[in-house]
């Protein structure tokens, strides 16, 4: 194990010769995942995800606002990822790190391209009043692959959202929220992300840890939905790779997706 810190690349190669990783996983095996919802009672929806040692918590706060003039009949969903100095020495205190911003944008793109939330459902009164869902994600402990964990946390938290009933007074036009009656919010679809990275240009490994991220190049993230469609494919950098390898990743992502969807269903029931 000492050798793994001193000569990470060399010792990693010896492990890969035996088709196993230092933590005992096979190359395409993901870490144990724990999903817990509703753990923040003050939020309108929340989820906590543990992916091995990586821990991400997501809280959703619903607020009423006036919609933008461009989309008068649509609500707004705002994801925000935070990777504070608390979660790893890789991050310094101060403005959000590049990685956090990239994940924020990833989640934003994902929500826009999939049908998990129909923003028209968030409309209370057209052109007057809509819900805005602030989804704040915080990485509590970082051990690689924050992306998969944050997708899981975000979707589970959105499924957990319960918003109070709003009635608008006809005479005064003022909204009245009834905190007693809260209804669950209809979400459609259960996207699930799987990340891979490439070691030494030839070995593809799934769900990398922080140490593995440091010594590998290029990451591939595939998001699948319940119909096994690809919703989002992101491949950043790394060496040129033949298409067959990519298909392997897609296949594994589909398998992993169906496992993860069992988790979504288990916490929903």
């Amino acid at each position, binding site marked *: 194990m000492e050798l793994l810190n001193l000569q990470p690349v060399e010792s990693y190669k010896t492990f890969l010769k035996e088709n196993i990783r230092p933590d005992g996983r096979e190359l395409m095996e993901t870490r144990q995942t724990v999903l817990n919802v509703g753990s923040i009672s003050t939020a309108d929806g929340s989820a906590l995800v543990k992916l091995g040692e990586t821990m991400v918590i997501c809280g959703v706060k619903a607020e009423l606002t006036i919609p933008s003039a461009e989309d008068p009949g649509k609500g707004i969903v705002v994801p925000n990822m935070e990777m504070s100095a608390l979660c790893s020495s890789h991050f310094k205190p101060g403005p959000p790190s590049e990685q956090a911003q990239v994940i924020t944008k990833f989640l934003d793109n994902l929500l826009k*391209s999939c049908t998990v939330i129909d923003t028209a459902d968030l409309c209370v009164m057209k052109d007057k009043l809509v819900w805005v869902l602030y989804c704040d994600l915080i990485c509590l402990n970082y051990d690689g692959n924050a992306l998969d964990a944050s997708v899981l946390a975000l979707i589970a938290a959105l499924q957990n959202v319960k918003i109070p009933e709003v009635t608008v007074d006809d005479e005064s036009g003022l909204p009245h929220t009834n905190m007693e009656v809260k209804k669950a919010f209809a979400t459609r679809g259960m996207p699930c992300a799987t990340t891979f990275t490439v070691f030494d240009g030839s070995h593809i490994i799934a769900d990398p840890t922080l140490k593995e991220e440091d010594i590998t190049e290029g990451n591939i993230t595939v998001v699948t939905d319940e119909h096994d469609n690809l919703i989002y494919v992101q491949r950043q950098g790394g060496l040129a790779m033949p298409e067959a390898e990519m298909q392997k990743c897609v296949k594994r992502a589909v398998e992993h997706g169906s496992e993860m969807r069992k988790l979504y269903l288990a916490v929903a029931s």
Partner: protein
Amino acid sequence: MDLNSSLPLGNLQCEQKVLKNTDGSAMYTAGETNVLVGVYGPADCKESKQDVKQAVVEVNFRPKIGIPGVAEKYMEKFVCKICESVILRSFHPRTAFSVIVQVMQDQGSLLSCAINAVSMALQDAGISMRCMPVAVTVALQKKEKEDNEMKDDSKKFVISPSTKDEEESVAIATFVFDSAQYDSISAYACGPMTSDEYRECLRLAKEASKHIVRFFRDSVSRKVSTDIR
């Protein structure tokens, strides 16, 4: 540009060496989208950012108006990863390459236009690369069932979509290939599609990328011939 008329890629234009003070620059136009890129490097680098084994790459993405936000950061990261994988960085340890991407006009397919512009600017700067990255954007459109004109599952693939095409499409995919083997270096696909549709997008993008490489070659030879004069 006689080459363009036969292609569904729209108007392609590229001018290198447009900026005096940069080490390499390129103004790239694809359709109505226009991007200006300047490259410095290998240049001095702050000690805190240095890498003893290889050069570091910094990408700065400037939007047309306003200050760069999260969307620009995402583009920066994407372009940066591509540059890191193509530039032979181990030739220049402890130095930095700086790439500045300025959006001049965005009418769709911005990401692929930016990557092609960066590719040409790096080439203009004479930076040694493994290959040149070539990017193509493909949009997948699905028509409603009542539309009788389209037979094949009423699907339609649009190469280099405009903003209007992008709005009408269900999924958009940008692929980056290497100019030598046409293997994929990077990919960005957003929107629901089956893996068959994904493969079809990839195939079309690969075909289109060959035309773009030819366009690269033509514009470089044009530049070189004017240099001699």
